């Protein structure tokens, strides 16, 4: 047996910390929760307002814009029709809204963090293990405190999804910026470019293929969280799969699963195509 004198009461500390957070800052968390929820509802009602054929046209157009290939437009159309024909259209839209806001928050937070990390080796050495922990920690561990802070429902699901999905985006942004040719950076400096202008006009554009790969990864991880997130009250395809499993209704589970895969194909192929097109014109020779 491990000697008891060497044990330390991490469990109690964490619980105490959480209690202190809830008692002291509960209102702030609730306010934050409200803001996110309002944005989510906005996005959701916007997506719902689009008729099904309108949605297919928009996404097929997006696929063409990303890839300049009609085959991809056809593929995403097939996927969307498949989702609709399984009777899961509304749920897919709910899941889509949840993903869009999760990915947007991830980009809003992850991109600047990645940029800062690329500029500071010290910050990088601090953040890398944190990112490792975020990726390996079982999601249930932060699902419960998320619920305690943000309440049961969509916001907690978004917070958990962001924690799970953000690490690859941060990593690839950092990598992309570090890989920008030092000669090009020196050249831009030699023309009297300021730090911010250098970031916007040189570093981010040249890191774009990697950043797009990060967004792609982020999107896929977010989709992977859909079923888990439904356990704390997120609606959508995840919930459908979850009820299927709970009732031992294999057919229902399978239908939901296929719809999730179809969504994944749509998001994956479109974000990947954007990244590859950037690589062609912007990437290194």
């Amino acid at each position: 047996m491990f000697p008891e004198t060497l044990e330390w009461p991490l469990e109690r500390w964490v619980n105490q910390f959480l209690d202190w957070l809830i008692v002291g800052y509960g209102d702030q968390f609730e306010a934050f929760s409200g803001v996110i929820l309002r944005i989510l509802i906005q996005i959701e009602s916007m997506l719902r307002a689009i008729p099904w054929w309108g949605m297919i046209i928009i996404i097929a157009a997006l696929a063409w814009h990303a890839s300049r290939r009609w085959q991809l437009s056809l593929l995403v159309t097939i996927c969307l029709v498949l989702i609709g024909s399984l009777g899961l259209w509304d749920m897919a839209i709910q899941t889509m809204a949840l993903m869009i806001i999760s990915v947007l928050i991830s980009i809003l937070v992850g991109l600047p963090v990645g940029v800062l990390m690329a500029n500071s080796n010290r910050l990088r050495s601090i953040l890398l293990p944190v990112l490792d922990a975020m990726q390996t920690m079982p999601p249930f561990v932060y699902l419960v405190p998320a619920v305690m802070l943000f309440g049961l429902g969509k916001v907690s699901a978004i917070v958990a999804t962001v924690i799970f999905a953000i690490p690859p985006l941060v990593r690839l942004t950092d990598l992309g910026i570090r890989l920008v040719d030092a000669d090009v950076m020196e050249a831009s400096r030699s023309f009297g470019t300021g730090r911010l202008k250098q970031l916007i006009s040189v570093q981010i554009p040249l890191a774009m293929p990697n950043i797009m790969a990060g967004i792609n990864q982020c999107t896929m991880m977010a989709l992977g969280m859909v079923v888990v997130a439904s356990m704390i009250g997120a609606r959508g395809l995840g919930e459908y799969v979850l009820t299927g499993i709970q009732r031992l209704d294999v057919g229902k589970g399978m239908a939901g699963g296929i719809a999730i895969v179809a969504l994944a194909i749509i998001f994956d192929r479109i974000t990947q195509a954007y990244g590859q097109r950037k690589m062609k014109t912007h990437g290194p020779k």
Partner: protein
Amino acid sequence: MSKIEIDSVSKIFGDDPVTIVPLLDEDMSKSDILEKHEHVVGLRKVSLNIEAGEIFVIMGLSGSGKSTLIRHLNRLIDPTSGAIRIDGIDIMSVDMKELQHLRQTKLSMVFQRFALMPHRTVLENVAYGLEVRGDELKSREEEARKWIGKVGLDGYEDRYPSELSGGMQQRVGLARGLATNPDVLLMDEAFSALDPLIRHDMQHILLDLQNELHKTVVFITHDLDEALAIGDRIAILHDGVLVQVGTPEEIVLRPADDYVRRFVHNVNRSRALRVEAIMGDAVPLFEGPSIPRSSFLEEILPKFVSNEDGLVVVNEDGSVCGHLTLASTMDAIAVATND
């Protein structure tokens, strides 16, 4: 006042470079400083004056500190000690904002590996310096187009750098450097990455442009032939120490030490020496073909075939200024094989 004054500039690389500066005054050697103090001496009390309108070549092998030195002129690297003055202004005294302004208006740089921005078209690359300093879109594109034309890249405005050959990419680099209309053009081994024929073309483009523009050009190279072909004056760096400064003729005819002599040994003298460097006094009443005083020996050699007695050297306006004999010409060219 010279255009650029480099005043006893030293650059030490290491953890605590300032503490090493006094050792330079004690004449401690580079290897001793590396061994005993773990610092690398990049430049050692280099002083140079570069005049407005000249092509000044800084030559040395890799590790001689030439690329370090040129980066001091626009402060991509700061010196450990010493001063650098451009138009009499000590550039170490300016703040970041003034330095950026200096880089935007007065100095620009052309790089060995081109350093073009792969995500920008040729036009956008050439206009980059103008964009940074805030010129209007219309005026900067107009200006960029003009320079693209001058370097012979008309029709390539909308191509990306990756679609161009090395020589063409460096023309873009040159156009980008010239587009901001700087007084001083810094060229860091600008033609070293190009194959010999293209390099030769680029040297001519530079010389043609220089005839028209009269910029102050600081040109770094490791190739003495290149230095002799384009330099009005040449400085030779060895291990961070300036060993000789002079005109191409002075370098070839009177190398300062063994290091320079070794360089000069392999050089094609007939291509480096001009008639005026070796001609004798004019011989009265001598009749013979006339040659311009600024010709290279290589160019006039064939004329000796039917005129062994000598050639008449003339000024640009055609007036006689000297006499060139076959013997003195052979002597000048042959020195290399004697030692």
